[in-house]
């Protein structure tokens, strides 16, 4: 047993250096060379200021913006320093109540819109940082945003269509709309 002690300690030390330092630093180096923007978080810069990331959702509740999905991060929604989901089960009364309340808020913000509320717009994501909504959820909100911004609904439809990404490589994932990029495009129209 004693004769195995030296290899055990030395091997741990050597492998720690190799896989814990050399490997991540090599990857960091390669990443900076080949994909510098992605490696640093795909941030969006406007007028020299970082306003967010293409990959991380933001919270919106003003009527002139498209709203993101609900977020269960703590202590406030879309807290990108503490990701997480609600973990509420499908029969949990707290989930049912939350969904009802969110649907009610959406309806109150757009009286007369009697389309059914798309499910992703009233359920929170696993990360709490989901940057996307479904195309159906974007279409659902067009009426409200168009009314508040005094824009033509047809123009809005075009804008949403431009910001709709299909399945990746035609097969993978789901069609989706990036809420932050869509809202940025809206703001930049002015």
């Amino acid at each position, binding site marked *: *047993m004693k004769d195995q002690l*030296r290899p*055990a*300690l030395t*091997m*741990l030390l050597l492998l720690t250096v*190799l896989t*814990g330092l050399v*490997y*991540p630093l090599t*990857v*960091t180096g390669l*990443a900076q060379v080949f994909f510098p923007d*992605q*490696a640093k*978080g*795909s*941030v969006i810069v406007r007028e020299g200021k970082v306003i*967010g*990331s293409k*990959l*991380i*959702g933001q*919270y*919106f509740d*003003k009527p002139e913006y498209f709203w993101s*999905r609900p977020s269960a991060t703590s*202590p*406030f*929604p*879309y*807290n*990108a*320093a*503490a*990701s997480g*989901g609600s*973990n*509420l*089960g499908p029969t*949990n009364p707290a989930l049912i109540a939350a*969904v009802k309340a969110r649907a009610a808020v959406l309806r109150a913000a757009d009286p007369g819109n009697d389309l*059914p509320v*798309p*499910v*992703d717009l009233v359920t*929170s*994501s*696993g*990360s*709490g940082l*989901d940057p996307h909504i479904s195309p159906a959820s974007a*279409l659902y909100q067009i009426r409200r945003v168009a009314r508040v911004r005094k824009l033509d609904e047809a123009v809005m439809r075009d804008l949403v269509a431009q910001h709709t990404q299909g*399945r*990746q*490589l035609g*097969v*993978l*994932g*789901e069609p989706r709309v990036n809420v932050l990029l869509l809202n940025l495009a809206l703001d930049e129209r002015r």
Partner: protein
Amino acid sequence: MTMNAILQVLVLFIVLLALAKPLGWYMARVYEGKPFVLDRLFGPVERAMYRLSGVRPADEMNWKSYAVAMLLFNVAGFLFLYGLQRLQGLLPLNPVNLGAVAPDLAFNTAVSFVTNTNWQAYGGETTLSYMTQMLGMTVQNFVSAATGMSVLVALIRGLSRSTSTTLGNFWSDMVRSTLYILLPLALLVSVLLVSQGVVQTLRPYQMAMPLQAIGYGKAMADPNSQGVLDEQGNQKTGPVVVSEQVLAMGPAASQIAIKQLGTNGGGFFNANSAHPYENPTPLSNFLEALAILLIPAALCYTFGLMVGDTRQGWAICAAMMILLLSLIPLGLWAEQRDNPLLAPAGVDQQVEAGLSGENMEGKELRFGITQSVLWSAVTTAASNGSVNSTHDSYSPLGGLVPLFLMQCGEVVFGGVGSGLYGMIVFVIIAVFVSGLMVGRTPEYLGKKIEPYEMKMAALLILIMPIIVLGFTALAISTDTGRSSILNPGPQGFSEVLYAYTSQGNNNGSAFAGLAANTPFYNLTGGLAMLISRFWLAIPILALAGSLARKKLVPPGPGTLPTDTPLFVVLLIGVVVMVGALTFLPSLALGPIVEELMMRG
């Protein structure tokens, strides 16, 4: 199930099968010490490591020395990781000044990573410094996987050698697994992941000025950090406006690549593979799911080559594949059914153009139902345990799929190395059962299966249910255990059952509503992980030692062929019977009763 869902499942498994053979062939060369291109690059490193640690790789070990070396290495790894977490506050590369990890949490997390479980009672971005993630987590992601692969290779040598007392050299198997297999694959996968947007930086967290500020009610506290209550005894809140978004960053890609390849699963961030910086696109999701299954599937082919009959490897691979593919449709169907309780809210749950439908609570939109369910099955079949959606929010039957896949004993692909050695135990039991039926001495690959082998095999399939069900019963019958539960009713029971099933099988995924960061769960869970890893690995090595000593006998007319479809069916039957008979009562108390209540 939509056409696209079927297509996405098929694409994953076709690519997996196409890669399994070349990788399996390469790994067999590595373990047989035959040179290949990477020798030129890593050969000098390998030899230097042996020189510095005084290892003579040609010195073969018997099963006891092999087990001692494996244990010593793991104990050293555990102590180092525990110490690192306790001291991280004093160490560099800690941009947000995270303090020492609490002792019970550090114990649980160290055990978790050393045993290849990667259960997360901690939240990555709020608990661990960059230094701890790199020197601690990333390292154990490599070496715990390499440990599993080494034990498997020892078992394979036990099966393929005739009247031998030795099983190879642990140090050389472990170093070669790391240098020639895990490291190159991890380098490749991490760069691919960065291309999709996974972060890889040593800079501190990034501040951003979002388009719109967030107003929320912050819990008020007095100067002693005690909550302030109003007249009704509720927590008082004060309005706060947040006008900054702090984007947590870090060297994530390098860790995520190996966390998937090594079936580890511990996330860099709290939300694990649901976090957009860990898994930003459907393509990154595909690559990561593929990485989870890649080595376990390829090892089946390696096994076939090393025992001199590739059909034996394919037979095991087929059994695993059939088990997994038959459970995925159940998950997809369950998650794409309406939740009847949401109907009164006027919510559109249809699967239609522009809407992936149904149970989206806890799921990311870019993955939708299909990639989420596919992942939940893949990550629990292989003992990975990373999650791209919160399993706790799955419909009852949707949550049953990952739970049952773990309860099969993590042998449906399973952990790298550990899955296949677990499956070989089931093969031995299947051979024994069929031997009883026809009244002949059971044998496998020319080795007679005798009472000693059966004792070890029985030990192996009994330990896991005892820890899983024993700890679940303990937690559920104490106030301490019950107080961590989030969801009411049968779902609460499922949370506890899932926690011990996951840790007792070294998986690491969770019904994460359970507040698992308490001394009770940290300690009992840590014990479950230790027992299930090492009380399995040691009997496996004993089994390997006993098999190696036996003579190889040529197959006779009474030998049951173990490479036929009939045997594949028999093997599946044994896995399902053992898993189902043991766990059906507990499943009935959790997901099954909840399903009945939900649909009334």
